[in-house]
């Protein structure tokens, strides 16, 4: 395409957006006015989006890890994270932690929940791999996808049953299908006020914890995959399974370990989301999984930093759309931006690094 042709195309797309956009709340003069009137709202919304994006990114890490190694879109991952949230809720409930308990008394139960949820999800994920995906390793590329969808349904239903365990865990509440309240345990201290800055912007320790956990997880995962022996074996397996096998790598074991790691991440994410959003419901995994999967692809699937970037982008975009466009249209806006980005960067935001793999 010649240069003038492509610029014409851009102009055309921009015009179309301006034409149709107002139907979905894109009223530019109003938005400019809103931002000029209260810029602190913009900052606040970006912060909200950032933290939500970090949560999406943590779930997306699990997707990207599994995708990177066996090119499977693990549809069940979102629901595994939901099971992780249920496991954490069960532990916290069984240990009798009350809503708003002080940190001294809730720290240990939280750690216990972290361990239980991670181990549980890791185990479940490994078993799933063994019995639902491994038999399909040499099947057509899309066969494991269907298996994953089936597993996802099984998990959703398991979550529903779990939610009905009121006879053993009173924290589950009266109704199996209803959302459950997760005790609010993380301290909520407004950081800006703490440092003496007076503003309308709220940024609490709770938000900070989520951001820190996300960054730590991302960096350590990145380092793990890049520099440890196991990480190298994982990359080798991802690049060429047969060659890796010939090099003496136990491919089955490596894949199982990848699922183990992905499961542990899902468990941790479940606890974190439980602590941050304070609600657990059996349907929460499907949408979160969809968002996370989108984030992983947007960032360039298989790329750990890309997953983070994609997650944050989606989070911020939704927050801004809720604020300035219309929450009815947020989903459409998020995916429209995704489509536009991928139309111009077909390999995702950070996708080039992977080109050699293809």
């Amino acid at each position, binding site marked *: 395409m010649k240069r003038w042709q492509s610029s014409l195309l851009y102009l055309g797309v921009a015009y179309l957006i301006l034409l149709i956009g107002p139907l979905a709340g894109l009223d530019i003069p109003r938005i400019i006015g809103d931002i000029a009137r209260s810029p602190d*709202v913009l900052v606040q*919304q970006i912060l909200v989006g950032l933290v*939500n994006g970090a949560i999406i990114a943590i779930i997306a890490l699990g997707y990207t890890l599994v995708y990177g190694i066996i090119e499977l879109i693990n549809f069940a991952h979102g629901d595994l994270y939901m099971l992780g949230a249920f496991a954490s809720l069960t532990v916290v409930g069984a240990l009798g932690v009350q809503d*708003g308990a002080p940190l001294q008394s809730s720290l240990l139960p939280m750690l216990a929940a972290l361990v239980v949820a991670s181990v549980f999800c890791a185990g479940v994920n490994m078993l799933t791999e063994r019995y639902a995906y491994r038999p399909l390793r040499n099947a057509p590329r899309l066969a494991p996808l269907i298996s994953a969808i089936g597993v996802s349904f099984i998990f959703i239903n398991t979550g529903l049953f779990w939610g009905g365990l009121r006879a053993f865990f009173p924290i589950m509440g009266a*109704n199996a299908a*209803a959302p459950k309240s997760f005790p609010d345990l993380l301290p909520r201290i407004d950081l800006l006020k703490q440092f003496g800055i007076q503003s309308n912007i709220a940024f609490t320790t709770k938000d900070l914890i989520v951001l820190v956990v996300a960054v730590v997880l991302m960096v350590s995962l990145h380092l793990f995959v890049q520099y440890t022996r196991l990480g190298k074996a994982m990359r080798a397996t991802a690049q060429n399974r047969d060659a890796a096998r010939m090099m003496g790598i136990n491919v089955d074991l490596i894949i199982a370990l990848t699922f183990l790691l992905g499961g542990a991440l899902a468990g941790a994410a479940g606890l974190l989301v439980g602590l941050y*959003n304070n*609600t657990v419901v059996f349907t*929460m995994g499907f949408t*979160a999984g969809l968002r996370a999967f989108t984030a992983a692809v947007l960032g360039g699937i298989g790329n750990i930093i890309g997953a983070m970037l994609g997650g944050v982008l989606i989070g911020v975009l939704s927050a801004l759309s809720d604020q300035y466009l219309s929450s009815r249209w947020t989903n459409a806006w998020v995916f429209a931006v995704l489509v536009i980005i991928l139309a111009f960067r077909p390999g995702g935001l950070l996708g080039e690094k992977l080109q050699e793999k293809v």
Partner: protein
Amino acid sequence: MNSPSSLKGLSPRSAFFVALATVSAGVLAAACQPNTTQAPTTTGGSPASSPAAAGNTVKIVSSLPMTGSSLGQTQTIVNGIKQVLEESNYGACTGKLKIEYEMMDDATAAAGKWDPAQVTSNANRAVSDPNVVAVIGTFNSGAAKLAIPILNTANVVMVSPANTYPGLTKPGKGEGKEPDVYYPNGIRNYARVVPADDLQGAAGANWAKTLGIKRVYILDDQELYGKGIADIFKSTAKNLGIEVLGHEGIDSKASDYKALMTKIKALNPDLIYFGGITQNNAGQLVKDMRNVGMTNDRVKFMGPDGIFEQALIDAAGKDAEGVMATFGGVPGSQLTGTGKTWYENYKKKYNAEPEAYAAYGYEAAQVVVQAINKVCKNDRAAIRDAVMATKDFEGVLGKWSFDANGDTTLSTMSGNVVKSSKYEFSQLLKAQ
């Protein structure tokens, strides 16, 4: 061994004829079978197979989404229905009639919620089973639009414990030719024990006015029920002089609403009204509202009967304190007489506080059983007429009748507020 003629002493041809003979016998039998099914000698019968013994068995069917996200509410409806049937010992007319109950699921696993094709198919199945005299359902008003016309032509009555869309019954309140399009044979066969949106939305707005609310922000869950009730709330609130700061639909599957609540907080309302059900993330809304700093003493949260249940309190935890809900009847704990017995029985049986939809389910089934008791035979049209003619019925919602449209005349509603993790009755409300 591998050839097909390994049958010793039997040539292929004769074997073929033997087979053919058995087959012909089978076909003959098959040809005769319609007569045998209709013979009155057959007893009992599986739900799907024999419609025999018509006359002393009637069947009530419920068509509700039992898969997916509305499950919380529909379970309680079914609990209510079953309680009625158990109380009447699955019989009517002092044992002359046997009442069967079948629970149909109008949702599918594939869709994860109510599926229009499934609604139509359930309605047709109900019609084609001669024992079915009444349908209790549907949960979603959209589903009712499809089921009513099918049942209408077959004279099967439908009593809904949950539909609130006004256009289903009230002339002039819906669009175009509603509600007449739903009743092709011209006779009403649909009634509901819940007050329609136009009553409850208005009651909510009136309540807000008496509480001195000045600025309200309205949300809905983008479903027919929630959007409808929110729209009515909005127009009534405007008429009453309450400033409406905005009206938005939420993505009921989102994991949180901090961005939305941040936006609302900046507008400084003193009430957030949510048209929708608990299952569509009402709990998370309440939590995030408090999370971004809208405390109960500054901003109230109000919703319709879709959030009048313990599940909301379970979901919102300590943040539920002060949440207000309207309910199209008197809450269980305030009941006297029949209602009180029901309230205590329900608590004993299901080990849970009876909720809005349990009461509605119970009431719907009670109305149907009461009509069957009047008619005392398997006669769809007569039972339909008996249900539609329900007058001065004393049930668990109070004393009420069906009006000519099939709407409940009960206009007393209650306002309830969460106090120490329980809904507590606050005051009686009027729609007008």
